[in-house]
C-alpha cells in the first residue's frame, strides 16, 4: 500500500462493457482509487514497463486481470509480471468469466493473489 490514501488500480480487460461495470462497482466501494485500463495483455505490459505512451504511468498498487484476451492472454501477462523483478510484488487479482478449475489452478500456480469470477448480477 502506498502512503497516500489513493491507490492505483490497473484493470486489464478487453470488453468495454466489463470495464464500465468494474468502474461502476469500484465507485461503490469505500476506497479512493485511480483506475487505469489496458485493453489487452500487450498494452498492460507496456503500461507496467512504462513504455511508449505509458512512460508517465504510475506503478499500480493492484492489478485486476482478465484472462480471455486477444493476443497476449491473462495467464501470460501474469507469468511475465511474476518474473519481472520490479513487478513481481504487485498483487494481481484475476477477474474473469471462466469458472474452470483448470484456469483457477493455473492462476494460483502462477502466483496470482486471488481469483474472482465475474458475477452476472451487478450487485
Amino acid at each position, binding site marked *: 500500500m502506498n502512503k497516500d490514501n489513493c491507490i492505483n488500480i490497473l484493470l486489464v480487460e478487453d470488453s468495454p*462493457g466489463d470495464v464500465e*461495470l468494474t468502474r461502476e462497482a469500484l465507485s461503490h466501494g469505500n476506497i479512493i482509487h485511480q483506475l487505469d485500463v489496458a485493453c489487452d495483455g500487450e498494452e498492460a505490459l507496456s503500461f507496467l514497463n512504462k513504455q511508449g505512451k505509458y512512460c508517465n504511468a504510475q506503478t499500480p498498487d493492484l492489478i485486476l486481470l482478465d484472462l480471455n484476451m486477444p493476443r497476449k492472454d491473462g495467464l501470460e501477462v501474469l507469468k511475465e509480471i511474476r518474473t519481472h523483478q520490479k513487478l513481481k510484488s504487485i498483487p494481481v487479482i484475476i477477474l474473469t468469466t471462466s469458472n474452470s478449475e483448470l484456469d483457477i489452478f493455473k492462476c494460483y500456480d502462477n502466483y496470482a493473489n486471488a481469483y474472482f469470477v465475474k458475477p452476472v*448480477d451487478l450487485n
Partner: protein
Amino acid sequence: MLRKLHFEIDNKTFAGFVFVLVVLFVIQWFTLRTTTGLIENTKLVNQTYTIITKLESVFSMLKDAESGQRGYIITNDSNYMGPYNKQRIEVQTKINELKELTIDNPEYQKKLATLDSLQKVKYENMEETLTLQQEAGQVAAIKSIMTGEENKIMIKIRYLIDKMKEDENRILDQRTREANDSSSRTLMVILITGLLALLIIIVSLYYINSDTIKRKKAEEELNRFFTLSLDMMCIIGNDGYFKRINPAFEDVLGYSNKELFSKPYYEFIYPDDKENTVEAVNNMVKDSTKLNIENRWLCKDGSFKWLAWKSVPVGDVRYASARDITEQKLSAERIGKMNEELEMRVKKRTEQLKKSNEELQQFAYIASHDLQEPLRMVASYMQLLEKKYKGKLDEKADQYINFAVDGASRMKALINDLLDFSRLDTKAKPMQFSDFNEILDDVTHNLKVAIKESKTQIEIIDKMPSLIVDSTQISQLFQNLINNAIKFRNQNITPIIKISAEEQPNQWVFKISDNGIGIEKEYYDRIFIIFQRLNNRVEYPGTGIGLAICKKIVERHGGQIWLESEVGKGSTFFFSIKSK
C-alpha cells in the same frame, strides 16, 4: 475261468420246483417203504408156505412111516422098513427145521414141542408094535394096531398139524391181505402224488410259459425300440468291435452294418478325437463308471458329425448310446457368433450413445456458459440504468427498464438452472455414505431466511438414515422440495412441513408433506418436466426446473419420485432411494 452261474429263476418257480422235488422224494420214500414191506411180506408168505409144506411133510412122513410099519407088519417085507427108518430121521429133521424157522414165535415153539413129543410118542408106539411083532408075532401086532391107539396119536398129530396149518393159513391170509392193502395203498399214493406232480409240472409249465411269453414280449418291445430309436445304440466288446448295433448307425453315419462290424469302433472316430475317446473309454472300463463324452465321428460321405455318447461297462462288454448333436453344436456356434456380433454392436452403440451424450452435455454446458457473458452485460447494464435513471426519465421509461431488468434476471435464472441440470451428471460427486440428518440440517440452514419469513414450521418426524449417495445432490433434492413447499404455501395458514422416512426392503422412502395449495391430479406427471410451470410467474416465482432436477437426482440414485395431493389442502411428495 469258471463263470459264475447266475441264478435268475424267480422265487415262485423255484418254490414250485422244490415242491415237486419234495413230492418226488415223498413218493420215493413211500415206494421204498412199501416195496420193503412187500418184500418182507413175501418173505413171510414164503415162510408160511414153507412151514405149511413142512408141516404137511411131517404128517406125510409120519404117514409114510406108519405105512411102512404097517406094511412090514403085514408082509414082513424088510423093504417096508426102509421108509420107516428114513422118515423117522427126516421127521426129526423137519421138525428141527420148523423149530428154527419159528424160533421167534414162542407159541409156535410150544406147539412144535407138542408135535415133537407127539411124533416121538408115535414112533415109540410104532416101535412098540414092531417089537411086539418080533416077540408076539404078527397077529398080536395087528391086534395092537386095531386098538387104534396109534391112530389116536395120528389123529392128534393130524389135528395139531391142521391147527397149525390153520394158523399159518390164517396168518397167510392176513399177510396176503396186508400185502394187497399195502400194494393198493402204495399204488394210490403213487397215483396221487404222480397226479400232483403232474399238476405242478403243468402249472409250472404254464407259469414258465407265460413268463417266457412276457419276457419274449418285453424282449420284442425292447428290440422294437432298439430298432426304431433315432439315437444310436450299440454293444461293443472289449476288443473294440461292435457286437450289436441298431439301424440308427446306418441312418446317422451312412455305413452299412457289414462295414460297421468290420472295424473296431475307434476307426470311425474323427482323428482329433480318437485318442481322447479311447482314453476315456479305457478309464470307464477300468473304474467301472459311467461315461459321458462328446466327439466327432466320420460319416461314410467324408463329413463328420458331433455325437453325444453315454456309455457303461457291463461284464465283458460296453453298452453305449449316442445322439446326433451336430445341429446343436452348430447352433451353439452360430448363437455364440451372433452373441459376439450383438455384443460388438451393443458396444459400438453404447459408445456412440456415450459420445452423443457427452456431446450433448458439453453442448448444454457451453451453451449456458457462453450465454452468461452477454447476459451479464444485459443484466448488469439494465440494473445500472435502473439505478442511474430511475425517476429521471418518464414513467414509460421506468416501466420498460423494469421489464428489461426482469427479463434479464429471469434469463439468468433459467441459464443457471440449465447449467445446474446439465451438471447433475457431469459434476456429480462419487457416492459416499452420508447422514441424511446432517443433510437436512444443512438444507434447513440454507433455507433459514425463507423459513423465517414465511413462518414455516418444519417437523422432522423420523430419524433419517445414512445411505450411500451424492450428498450435494441429495441436499439439492431436499432443498428444492422444501423450498417448493414453502413457496406454494396457503396464505393465512401457518405452513407446516412434515418430513418422514420409512425403511422398506432394499430402499428407503422419504415423505415431504405440506399444507399448501396442492396440485391437481392431471398435472402430476407434468410438473416433473423441465421448465413446466402450473402457476403464474408473478405470484410464484421460479423457472420450473426444481422438480425436474429432483427427478433426475432421484433417478440417479436408483429411486422414484411421485406425489399425492389435494387441491387447497396440501401435497405430499414421496421419493425412494436405494439402500444397497
